[in-house]
C-alpha cells in the first residue's frame, strides 16, 4: 500500500505548464541565454519552481516531466515526508479494513452517503496512525529506553502481544489491566524508560499499531 498525499497537490499544479503565455508566473524569468519565452511553474507552496521552455504542443508526457521535476525538488526539501512509505517498507504494517463498499447514496441518510474521498481519508489517516505506532514500537530512542531496548526485540511485528485478551486481571499489577497498562509496564521495566501519560500521542500510536497487527483475531477478554 502506498501513500500519495503530496502528488495529489501536484496534479493540480501540473496544468499550469500548459498556460502558454507565462501569465501564471509571478515573476518573469530572465533566462541566462537572454531568451525570455520561458515559463515558470510554481508549486502550491509558492516557492518550489521549475522554469521550462515555451511549448506550443504540450503533451501528457511533457506535463508529467514538469510534475516530476517539482516533486523531486519538493522531496529533497522535505526528506521526512515519505515516512509512511519508509516505515512501511521495513515493517509492513497491516492495513485497516476496506470500507469501499460503503461508497454511494444508500438509503439517503447522512450516514449512508459516503464518498470515495471519505473512504480514502479514513484509510489514510487511520493507517498513518498505526504506522506511526510502528515507528515508536521499533525505536528504543522514541520509547525513551535507557538501555537501548525496543518493543520489537521481544515482539517482532507485535507477535505475542495479544491485545485481544485485554482487559484481564494481572496479579503482578494488582488490578485489571488494559492493553495500555501493559504497554506502560513494559516501557518501565524491560525497556527501562519513563511511563507515558494516558493521552500521550506515542502511547496512542503504540496501541493503534499493536491492534492493527492483530486485525481479524477474535476478542477474548480475560484470556491468559
Amino acid at each position: 500500500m502506498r501513500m500519495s498525499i503530496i502528488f495529489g497537490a501536484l496534479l493540480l499544479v501540473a496544468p499550469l505548464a500548459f498556460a502558454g503565455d507565462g501569465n501564471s508566473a509571478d515573476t518573469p524569468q530572465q533566462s541566462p541565454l537572454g531568451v525570455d519565452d520561458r515559463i515558470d511553474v510554481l508549486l502550491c507552496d509558492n516557492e518550489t519552481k521549475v522554469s521550462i521552455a515555451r511549448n506550443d504542443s504540450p503533451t501528457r508526457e511533457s506535463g508529467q516531466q514538469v510534475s516530476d521535476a517539482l516533486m523531486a525538488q519538493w522531496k529533497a526539501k522535505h526528506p521526512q515526508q515519505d515516512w509512511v512509505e519508509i516505515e512501511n517498507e521495513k515493517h509492513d504494517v497491516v492495513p485497516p479494513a476496506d470500507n469501499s463498499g460503503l461508497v454511494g447514496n444508500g438509503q439517503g441518510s447522512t450516514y449512508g452517503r459516503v464518498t470515495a474521498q471519505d473512504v480514502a481519508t479514513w484509510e489514510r489517516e487511520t493507517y498513518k496512525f498505526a504506522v506511526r505506532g510502528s515507528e515508536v514500537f521499533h525505536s528504543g530512542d522514541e520509547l525513551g529506553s535507557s538501555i537501548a531496548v525496543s518493543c520489537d526485540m521481544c515482539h517482532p511485528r507485535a507477535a505475542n502481544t495479544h491485545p485481544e485478551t485485554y482487559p484481564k486481571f494481572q496479579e503482578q499489577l494488582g488490578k485489571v489491566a488494559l492493553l495500555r497498562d501493559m504497554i506502560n509496564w513494559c516501557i518501565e521495566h524491560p525497556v527501562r524508560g519513563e511511563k507515558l501519560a494516558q493521552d500521550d500521542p506515542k502511547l496512542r500510536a503504540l496501541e493503534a499499531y499493536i491492534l492493527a497487527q492483530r486485525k481479524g483475531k477474535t476478542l477474548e477478554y480475560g484470556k491468559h
Partner: protein
Amino acid sequence: MKFKRIPHIKSVETRFVEQRQALFDDLRHLDRRQFMKVSLGAAGAAAAAGVTHPFHSFLPVDISGIGRAQAAESADGGFRFAYISDSHLYARNINDRFLRQLLRAVDDINALDPQPDFVLYGGDLAQLGQKEELEIGAQILKEVKAPLRMMVGEHDWYLDMGEKWRELFGRETYSFDHKGVHFVVLMSVNEKDFWSARGMTPMERMSTVAGLDNAVQSPFEVGAPQRQWLKQDLAKLSRDTPVVVFSHSPLYKLYKTWNFWTDDAEDVQALLQKFDHVTVLHGHTHQVLSNRIGNIHFHGMLSTAWPWPYAPEGMPPLTVQMNRPNPFDPNDGLGDGSVQVHPDGLVDKLYSFWNRNPMQVQASYLASGGRKDAPPRPLAASY
C-alpha cells in the same frame, strides 16, 4: 452486589522463587543422609519432567556428587558439550542487563561438573557489531573454563562485514574432529547486497539487519563458495561418520519474515544427505525448536538476552513449544544448555532454563518421529 477486597495473592513466579529458595535454605541445615534424600528428590523431579542427562541448575551438582555419578552412567562412550548463544551485548555504558545475563551463563557452564568437552558460542555476541560490544564479549567469554568454539551471527557481522569479529575469534567457517565426530561451523547469515543501491552507511546496514522484522534486508544464505568448501570438507568422510553442523540460522526454511530461514537450505541439506546421522544446532531463534528432515536432526539454542515468540506459520510439527515467557519474570525463557552426543552421532539436547525446569529433547524423540519420549507439552502456548 457487594465486592470483597481482593486478597493479597502471590504471583506464580514469586511462589516458585520462594519454594526454590526454601529448598536451598533447607539444604544448608541437612546432615549427609538427609541431604542425599533431598538431592535425590530433586533429581527425581527432573527425571519426571523427562530429563535424563545431567542438568545445569536446580540440583546443586557441584557439591552433591550425584551429578558426577549420573554423568558417568549416561556417558555410554559418548561425550557432552555445552552452549551459550545470542547474548546481543551493548557496550558497558549503554546496557548492563545483557552483560549480566552473559556472565550468568558463563557461571552456569563453569559450574558444570564434570566439565563439558567444549563450549559452543552460537553467534550474536554483539547487538550492533560495535568494536566495544565484541571486545567486552570476548573478555567475558575468556572466563569460560572449557575450550571455546565460536560461531558468528548477523549482529556480529554487518557493521564491518566481520572484520572485528575475525580479528578477535579467527575464521568464521571451519571444521574439527572430536572423539570420532566431525564438527562443521558455518557462516549461514550471508545476505545479498541490499545496501549499496540504497546508499546506506555501514551503521544503517547494521541497524537494518539487527531488526528481526525489518523487511528491507535479504534472506540469509550459506552461499555457493561456502557450499563448495563444505562439499570438499565432507568428501573424505565415510557415510557412518557422525556429523554435527553449527549454523547461526536454522538450516531449513521456517519463517522468512523473521529470517528464521536459510535460502539455500536445500542445497546444504543435499550435501549432508549421504551420512547416516547428522545433527544441526542453530542459534538465532531464541527458543526451544526441534525439527527433522530425513537423516538430519535440528535443534535450536536458548538466548541469554531475550526470548523470541514462535513464528505464526511454518512451525515444524516435531517442535514441542516452550511455554510463553512470562514478562513479569525478567529472565524467563532464557538460559543456556548442553548436548549429549551418543556414539552413533545422535544427540540428546538439553535446554537449561534459568527460571524454570530444564527441558530435554532426546534423540529417540526425533528418531521415532515424535512417537517416543515426547517432552511435556506447554500449557501457555505462543499466540
